[in-house]
């Protein structure tokens, strides 16, 4: 298996090399298929590890200076490798038919396979240097991919700057946290840290954990470190945003669980309360912004923040249960978290890819310019709808199972005697309920405005169904959404093994396998397969009843518009108007601003020439925290720029002063 994993990584690098040197004609198919082969290899290794539980180990003393390279792929890491591999295969197949966004350039063709390879490498890294190397490589390659289009659109530059700043700050926090642990443990391999962790002083453990949560949280898009996510995910090309949103953000969760549960073996209650608070805040904030966005990709990006928030909520609940002596519930919550990571990858990948198709077919991703797409692009529209229902956690689709498990784990914590649990779990349940409602609202908006009704722009009116590769890439993930939702037992045992391997505690399996998902010792069971059958039977019965009751002929006429002669798309509901009531309710958080601009004709102020309305919502954290910080830094930067003014005399003086300072310090 180790040989296959090495071959996989080499294949990924080969794809990158081919992308850099091959002529433009064959560049895209060569890199894509080599990357698909690499992902296939990665999936095979991960599947083997998950099936047998024997880790794959690759250790060399070369490759990386001073430390060598240590890769150990265990069950927990293998889960993330498998998820990334499946998403990457779909994204690469999608990429074959995807034009635009400058993805065919030499740089992008080289960097995209590299990015995919690092996604497979990060969960296998088993010492601090290897991990940080792979992590940085992943961050930098994804930054390149966000920036490929920067010459054409100024908003890409801003997205790239935000992403670069946030990812580097995050990487810095991770570096500090891991180095702090490594320096106190007498070894930089994860095994050494895990062995020494119980004997470390509490402040070291606590500080390292907080730093690591900051760093990985920024990658997972956790509020308040999420600001880069709606920008970068929205501006990146379709397949790249799918990879980032369905595979890369997962690694933030991976990092928190790996360090918190795997290396530090859990910790005091306040760690997990912190994680839960961050998760709850992200879930609510993300869901709210996603429900009020009108840019389709921005909406999906905020929904990623929302879903990663739910995962963090589950991770925090798991840690809290462990620290208060409920190992069974702790495992259950962690299973719910990992399951949501897997299912989120399926539906969000599907949604981002089908949004890429919509963008390619219509030239816009503004919901207020879309409409009528289900009729014009039936395949893409259906795929989007399936992904959307998964995102809204509707039964029989995958999102439902994981959110149900999370809800169950939190509800079963309620009889606990522990006051912390008695206070936090009801809040967690409330957050889950509210975000679930907001997610359903978001999906109704995205599908109702984007897919139904009349087209609101010429681009949407002329939209044609996209090619097979685009539909295939997104369609596979849509099929997975349904499959996982109907037969969750396909993945639940694997995920449970992964969760158990990172907790490192032998806990009895709390979940029954087979058609039903049941909790040990509890009477609640979920049988999605039976629900699906019942649903099919109901739909069939309704169809029969309808045929029996309908008086024969069906006449299809125009929608009733008061007999108007002109019925245009401008009379339709828009995404902005759909979200308006919600915006009004949450005015304090969203701070909507309206700008009405009326110009009059020159002769008389009684006649209006044109009226335009601009509405915008801003991000509270950006306004309150990032903008002042940005202004402050800019002011100091401007001051600092005055110091080196080009005068040679001044530079010589600097040299002299520096020498004197060094001499004084050394003496």
């Amino acid at each position: 298996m180790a040989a296959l994993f090495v071959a996989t990584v080499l294949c990924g690098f080969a794809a990158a090399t081919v992308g850099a040197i091959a002529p433009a004609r064959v560049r895209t198919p060569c890199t894509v298929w080599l990357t698909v082969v690499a992902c296939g290899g990665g999936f095979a290794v991960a599947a083997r590890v998950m099936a047998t539980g024997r880790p794959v180990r690759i250790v060399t003393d070369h490759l990386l200076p001073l430390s060598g390279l240590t890769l150990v792929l265990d069950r927990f890491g293998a889960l993330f490798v498998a998820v990334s591999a499946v998403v990457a295969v779909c994204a690469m197949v999608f990429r074959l038919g995807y034009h635009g966004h400058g993805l065919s350039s030499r740089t992008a063709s080289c960097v995209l396979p590299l990015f995919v390879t690092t996604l497979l490498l990060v969960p296998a890294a088993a010492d601090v240097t290897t991990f940080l190397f792979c992590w940085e490589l992943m961050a930098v390659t994804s930054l390149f991919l966000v920036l490929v289009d920067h010459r054409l659109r100024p908003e890409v530059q801003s997205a790239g700057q935000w992403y670069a700043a946030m990812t580097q700050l995050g990487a810095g926090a991770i570096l500090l946290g891991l180095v702090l642990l490594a320096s106190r443990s007498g070894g930089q391999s994860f095994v050494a840290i895990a062995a020494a962790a119980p004997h470390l002083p509490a402040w070291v453990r606590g500080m390292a954990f907080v730093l690591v949560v900051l760093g990985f949280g920024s990658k997972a898009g956790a509020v308040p470190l999420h600001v880069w996510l709606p920008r970068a995910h929205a501006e990146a090309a379709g397949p790249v945003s799918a990879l980032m949103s369905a595979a890369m953000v997962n690694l933030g969760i991976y990092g928190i669980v790996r360090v918190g549960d795997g290396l530090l073996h859990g910790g005091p209650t306040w760690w997990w309360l912190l994680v839960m608070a961050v998760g709850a805040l992200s879930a609510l904030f993300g869901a709210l912004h996603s429900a009020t966005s009108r840019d389709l990709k921005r909406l999906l990006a905020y929904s990623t923040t929302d879903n990663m928030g739910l995962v963090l909520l589950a991770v925090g609940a798991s840690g809290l249960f462990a620290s208060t002596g409920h190992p069974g519930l702790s495992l259950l919550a962690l299973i719910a978290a990992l399951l949501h990571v897997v299912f989120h990858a399926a539906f969000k990948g599907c949604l981002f890819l089908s949004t890429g198709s919509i963008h390619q077919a219509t030239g816009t991703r503004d919901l207020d310019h879309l409409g009528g797409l289900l009729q014009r692009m039936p395949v893409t529209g259906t795929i989007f709808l399936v992904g959307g229902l998964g995102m809204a956690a509707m039964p029989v689709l995958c999102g439902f199972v994981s959110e149900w498990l999370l809800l169950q784990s939190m509800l079963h914590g309620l009889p606990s005697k522990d006051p912390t649990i008695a206070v936090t779990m009801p809040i967690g349940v409330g957050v889950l309920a509210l975000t679930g409602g907001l997610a359903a609202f978001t999906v109704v908006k995205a599908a109702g405005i984007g897919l139904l009704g009349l087209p609101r722009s010429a681009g949407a009116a002329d939209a044609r169904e996209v090619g097979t590769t685009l539909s295939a890439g997104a369609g596979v993930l849509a099929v997975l959404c349904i499959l996982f939702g109907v037969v969750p037992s396909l993945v639940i045992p694997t995920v449970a093994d992964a969760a158990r391997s990172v907790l490192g505690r032998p806990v009895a399996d709390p979940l029954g396998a087979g058609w039903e998902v049941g909790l040990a010792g509890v009477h609640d069971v979920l049988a999605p397969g039976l629900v699906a059958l019942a649903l099919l039977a109901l739909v069939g019965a309704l169809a029969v009843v309808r045929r029996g009751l309908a008086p024969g002929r069906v006449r299809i006429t125009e929608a009733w518009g008061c007999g108007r002669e002109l019925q245009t798309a401008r009379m339709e509901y828009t995404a902005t108007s759909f979200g308006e009531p919600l915006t009004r309710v949450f005015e304090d958080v969203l701070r909507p601003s309206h700008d009405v601009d009326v110009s009059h004709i020159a002769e008389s102020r009684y006649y209006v020439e044109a009226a335009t309305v601009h509405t915008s919502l801003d991000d509270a954290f950006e306004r309150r925290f990032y903008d002042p910080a940005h202004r402050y830094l800019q002011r100091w930067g401007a001051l600092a720029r005055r110091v080196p003014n080009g005068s040679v005399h001044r530079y010589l003086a600097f040299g002299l002063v520096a020498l004197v300072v060094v001499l004084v310090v050394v003496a």
Partner: protein
Amino acid sequence: MRFGVLRRHLRRTAVPIEPVADAAESVRGTAVRLRGSLQLRHVDAGSCNGCEFELASVFSPVYDAERFGIGLTASPRHADGLLVTGPVTRNMAEPLRRTFDAVPEPRIVIALGDCARDCGAFRGAYGVEGAVGDVLPVDVEIPGCPPDPETIVRALRGLAGS
């Protein structure tokens, strides 16, 4: 109070209403069989508002056609038919066709007033396309300029069978 008692009480004290008039002279006979309920969408195709005035009385407390199960709906989608007043002007011809198209089948068209029947005083005017019968298949005609509320109520009751 038991239901039977209430029913007896109602029977004893109910408002005496006129018997169903023989509305045959104004009803040509329609494809629709109604049993005590008639919901109509009113379209003013170019009327002088005289018919509207009388129509308002029909649903006023004095004549109160609602007690016979006759009502005006807000949307043709909910209606059994159209109640058209006035001659059909050029501007209203297309909206009238569209409204008719929006009524589910089987449907009734009632031409209310002389103008709706044969353009009345507006016959030959430059803005008039024709009578309602020239635009839509009319099932029932109610004559009068304007028809008084009793006539309208009698005709509609005859149609609704209430």
